[in-house]
């Protein structure tokens, strides 16, 4: 908590149109997206966004198409300029930067992975992966070694002299990730990075990202429209709707306590047993209870159902590593599996 967030967005507004400032007044006075478009022909992109992104965490911004998530991520490195608001990176206001200052921050602090890969078709894989270093003017010997290192890390060694068009989509995106890693920046922006890939490859790539994150601890901002992906990756989940934040927080918390019918709709289709962890549904330790066995707080509920054989009368002791942190009643587990929307009337605890 005492840590200063790596990236802070403060009261960020974006209105697309000829006179954003005038339209901003209407929005601040409470005008909605549809009304603004009908009356003033301006499109409300983002509305009063306040998000803190902690260093070393994956912040996932989720929303349906048109919710403003791609617009949001482009504000962080100012590929899009906001109509109003502050963007603080390491406490420095990105809005105050000069052109060269902005270039420096793009070169040294943030790297980006794109939905459509955006590789240079006329350059080899190695040259593509080394692009951030070439831009900085690093000499060939250094950039080649760096590029090779990261290409190998994402499983592409041997392809360095191929061209992007010779690679499959999944491999191209690996190059995209290698390129972002070669930049060696603290912050990685991933704009629907895996959305163009087929489901199996997507799972591979998510695992690769989590694996890399384990050792590199980057500050990752990940955009997706896929809730499963969001829940798998997120340390901090931000849900956008019509350019505004509907709910943000720890993903398990959002899943168990959706604040809004929109989010309830979203989460109702999820395989909760696979996403929810013991930590989120366990209760405090009670006296005089006999435990069937020990489980880890990080286990998902699916594995617990397998252990218990589906019996609801059992209770387990929950460990976080070696220390006892609570107990889990299988009955609570079953309750948690049902989305809140249908259990709302009997919600008495």
């Amino acid at each position, binding site marked *: 908590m005492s840590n200063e967030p790596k990236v802070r967005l403060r009261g960020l507004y974006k209105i697309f149109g000829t006179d954003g400032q005038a339209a901003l007044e209407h929005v601040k006075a409470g005008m909605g997206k549809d009304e603004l478009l009908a009356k003033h022909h301006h499109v409300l992109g983002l509305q009063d966004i306040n998000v803190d992104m902690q260093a070393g965490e994956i912040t996932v911004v989720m929303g349906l198409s048109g919710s403003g998530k791609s617009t949001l991520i482009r504000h962080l490195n100012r590929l899009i300029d906001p109509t109003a608001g502050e963007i603080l990176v390491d406490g420095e206001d990105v809005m105050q930067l000069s052109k060269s200052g*902005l270039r420096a921050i793009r070169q040294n602090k943030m790297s980006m992975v794109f939905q459509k890969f*955006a590789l*240079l078709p*006329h350059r080899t894989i190695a040259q593509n992966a080394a692009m951030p270093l070439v831009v900085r003017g690093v000499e060939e010997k250094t950039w080649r070694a760096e590029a090779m290192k990261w290409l190998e890390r994402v499983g592409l060694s041997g392809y360095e002299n191929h061209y992007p068009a010779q690679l499959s989509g999944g491999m191209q995106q690996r190059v995209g990730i290698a390129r972002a890693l070669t930049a060696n920046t603290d912050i990685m922006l991933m704009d629907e990075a895996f959305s163009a890939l087929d489901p199996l490859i997507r799972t591979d790539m998510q695992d690769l990202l989590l694996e890399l994150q384990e050792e590199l601890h980057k500050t990752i901002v990940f955009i997706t429209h896929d809730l499963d992906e969001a829940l798998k990756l997120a340390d901090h989940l931000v849900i956008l709707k019509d350019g505004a934040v509907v709910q943000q927080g720890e993903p398990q918390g959002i899943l168990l306590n959706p604040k809004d019918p929109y989010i309830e709709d979203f989460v109702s289709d999820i395989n909760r047993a696979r996403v929810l962890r013991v930590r989120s549904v366990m209760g405090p330790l009670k006296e005089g209870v006999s435990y069937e066995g020990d489980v880890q707080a990080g286990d998902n509920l699916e594995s617990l159902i397998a252990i218990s054989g589906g019996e609801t009368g059992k209770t387990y002791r929950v460990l976080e590593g070696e220390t006892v942190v609570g107990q889990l009643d299988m009955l609570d587990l079953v309750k948690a599996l049902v989305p809140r929307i249908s259990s709302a009337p009997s919600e008495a605890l």
Partner: protein
Amino acid sequence: MAFYDGMFKAFGLEQWCGEGNSDAPLSMADLLAKASGKGADGPIFPFPSLDNLNKSCGNLSQTRDLTKGIEDGFLAAKPALKSVLDPLTQPLSWMLDSALWAFAAIPWFIMIPVLVAVAWFASRSKGVTIFVAFSILLLAFVDHYDVAMQTLSIIFVCTGISVLLGVPIGIAMSKSDKLERVLVPILDLLQTLPTFVYLIPLIFLFSVTESKLYGIAIILYAIVPVVRLTNLGIRLVDQDVIEAANAFGMSSSQKLTKVELPLALPNIMAGVNQTIMMSLAMVVIASLVSAPGLGVNVLRGIRNLELGVGIVAGIGIVLLAVILDRVSKAALQRVDMTHVKH
């Protein structure tokens, strides 16, 4: 009594018209009518053109006064224009003259292998190279080597200058919508203007003995496609790639040299190919204003009704055109291969 007398009367302009009446020169049609003794009976309802109105009102100009006025205006502006344009375009004359001299001075047994080698390095295609060698030898065999080399040297210089000027103009145009709005009508004009019309103002400005006269005509005509296609090529570069370049902090010049130009290269090369073909077309017409080369023989064929001379020169031009087209297209394909498709 002319048709529009009544109209001027109705407006009360009779007085004003009358002052300068009848001193306008007669038109050819009027003279003929007079000579044959008939009255100048025009159509029942003549179009109110300058000439017809002039018959009723001598104070209005005739169309011939208008054309005369344009000519006078042009002649009046000529010294000023010339003093600016002459020194600016003088290097063009030198370049053309020295290219013509060089192509003539280098003996054929060096020149032909050099040209064939150029064809090979540009196209890397055996078929094209053999065709180039065969065509040049054929031209030389029918004693058209010298004129063909003159045409070729003019094309080299004019295409080179067109590319040197056209690519930067195209780049600037792709960066600024305002500039594009200004330049597109000018390019349209240059492209639609009949090729002969170029020559009219140029003949007034420069003397026919100067080689820059035809040089300018050729460049004005041939520069259009390379400008257009450079502009188009850069505008067509994938926006996602441009965004990636921005996201990694490329400066504008890095973006241009590392991303935009390489990706636009196939389009630019297509423009260069068109530029070459158009300068060949113009160099033939420019023989009217003293451009040397195969065109002169074509002109001789037309003027003196020397059918054979004209046809042989015409076939020579076709051979040159095919050579230039095949070599530049093969080069274009090679560029396309190494940079985009694999």
